[in-house]
């Protein structure tokens, strides 16, 4: 009896020792992951907390932490132009997303489906795809500079010079058409980015599926509608989600092309934040606006995940035979 009790004790001792050793071992991987955790905490988590705290102060360029409670948030909802800014933001988000997604589907169907697959003019298709890629490859600042130059005032802008050449009167593009110009330039740039994604999705379609549809009697347009476009469902969903969130937070193109003008007619919510935080240096108010934007983004994101049934698309195996 004594002996067995002794053995048990001994076992317990070795067991605790083992457990300690295991714990020590488990600590090691986390040590190795420090280079990941440290930057995330320093550059992501801490700024988020700082911004939250800052949104309850009236911090200006003096950087004083003077707490004023919910005043900043009251100011957001009390701002008379806020409804106009939000409506404008909605217009930009919906307009850009629709134009860029539909535009890139159109370009890809022409270049990849019709030129590459139907008419077997692969080089021509490639050429057009490369041309279409240029807006996305150009840095935003260069791209927007080119637009400023093209639509510049009488005597400077290229378009106005061309109008003059054919005897038409010059137009004040940035006075009367600033929102339209923003929509056109931004959606062109983002349509250009979708082309690679959509084009590679079309190329993944097995050749035999298109051949089979031809033998079954389907015409080129019917094949495009019933076979090719369904293959684009997932990339289109992805691009739409991306474009909605991206356009909601976009301000650099506005800064570069119109600067919010004329008379604040192209100020969107994100640009309004930029103005308050970096032009008027009202950091506290800017932080509150940003917190509100993050909340809106999260809400929109959750709604869209539901609407597009992203979880379903991810789970159901997309058959490739």
């Amino acid at each position, binding site marked *: 009896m004594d002996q067995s009790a002794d053995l048990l004790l001994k076992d317990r001792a070795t067991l605790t020792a083992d457990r300690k050793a295991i714990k020590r071992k488990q600590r090691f991987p986390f040590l190795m992951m420090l280079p990941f955790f440290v930057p995330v905490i320093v550059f992501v988590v801490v700024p988020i907390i700082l911004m939250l705290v800052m949104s309850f102060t009236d911090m200006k360029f003096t950087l004083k932490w003077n707490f004023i409670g919910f005043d900043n948030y009251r100011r957001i909802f009390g701002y008379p132009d806020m409804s106009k800014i939000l409506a404008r933001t909605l217009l930009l988000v919906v307009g850009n997303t629709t134009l860029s997604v539909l535009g890139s589907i159109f370009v890809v169907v022409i270049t990849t489906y019709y030129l590459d697959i139907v008419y077997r003019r692969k080089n021509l298709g490639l050429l057009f795809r490369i041309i279409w890629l240029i807006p996305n490859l150009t840095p935003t600042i260069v791209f927007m500079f080119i637009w400023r130059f093209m639509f510049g005032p009488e005597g400077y802008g290229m378009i106005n010079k061309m109008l003059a050449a054919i005897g038409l009167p010059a137009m004040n593009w940035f006075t009367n058409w600033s929102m339209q110009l923003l929509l056109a330039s931004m959606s062109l740039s983002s349509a250009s980015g979708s082309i690679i994604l959509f084009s590679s999705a079309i190329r993944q379609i097995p050749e*035999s599926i298109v*051949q*089979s*549809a031809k033998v*079954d*009697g389907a015409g080129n347009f019917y094949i495009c509608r*019933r076979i090719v476009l369904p293959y684009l469902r997932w990339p289109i969903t992805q691009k739409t989600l991306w474009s909605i969130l991206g356009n909601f937070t976009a301000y650099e193109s506005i800064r570069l092309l119109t600067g919010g003008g004329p008379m604040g007619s192209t100020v969107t919510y994100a640009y309004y934040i930029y103005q308050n935080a970096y032009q008027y240096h009202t950091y506290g108010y800017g932080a509150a606006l940003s917190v509100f934007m993050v909340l809106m983004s999260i809400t929109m994101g959750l709604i869209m995940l539901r609407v597009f049934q992203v979880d379903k698309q991810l789970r159901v195996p*997309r*058959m490739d*035979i």
Partner: protein
Amino acid sequence: MSEPMIRLENIGKSYDGRTYAVRGMDLTIEKGDFVALLGPSGCGKSTTLMMLCGLYRPTEGSIYFNGRYVNNILPKDRNIGMVFQSYALYPNMNVFENIAFPLKQLKHLSKREIRKRVQEVANTVKIPELLHRMPSQLSGGQQQRVAMCRALVKDPDILLLDEPMSNLDARLKLEIRDEIKKLQERLALTAIIVTHDQEEAMAISSHIAVIDQGSIQQYAAPDVLYNRPKNLFVASFIGTPPMNFITGTLEPMGEDFVCITAGGNITIPAALIDCDLLTSRSVVLGIRPHNFKVVQSRENALTLSVDYIEHLGKENLYRCQMAETSIRVITAIDERYPTDEPLSVQIDLKMLNIFDEGSGDNITCDVVV
């Protein structure tokens, strides 16, 4: 004289304008025939099928369906049904929509008529319970059946099958093979199957076109192909275990001939050989493994040394050597011979094929060309 169902005249196809995937191909297929295009990969059999269905246009030659020139006719107007190797089911449509797809292209059909015909063909192929599933929810064999339905629903004149069973496991292959054969006979279809599996081709088809390097080597019924291959390529391609080839010199001897080989001399009656033979010539004797008879005497027999024995269950296979040549001899299960003594075998002359070594052509007298 009625026109054959399909007639290919001197068909050629080149993808790059220099090399030909198919060249100088002539083929006549009667109504109700089940023809297999058989050959190693890259021989041009799939290219031929693609030209038949109209997805590829022949570079030269003409194709006639029922006497009608169809080179310029689009696939959809040829009234063909096709089953692809990968089945090519439309992944975004369920089984019903997949099968109904060809019917929807015919503008005059009502929805009720379409539903009725899909239902009918699904019953024929025995998949009525699958109509609401998506292709991704089907097994390989079920996908194959759906592809068959889609090919048959239009009531085609010609059924084209592009390696339809190569993605199935061995047992399912046998099952589907039987069903395709039964369906073809019941519906009196003209069918063409592309395959590299000779067993499949022998089992399913009424005629086989053996293709190599873009042209037909022999076009005949399976038994003819097996017993009287037209040339060395066909002889070596058809049959498992393969035919034995023994090189020798054929020389006139009195009324008959004698073939001198490394394993012994064999007398060959003159009636067996199709051409006039005045001087000796190099030939290849082709004998199937089960056409040997083990004998005691060495008279008119080949002497082989036995390497080892494979017991195949219903028979024994002796792996033998004759000089540098490896020879397979199949004997009945109750015949046992020692491995350490030389084996004397006689050739069943009725089943012997003699090929000219230079041209590779069969010079046995009753070769069907």
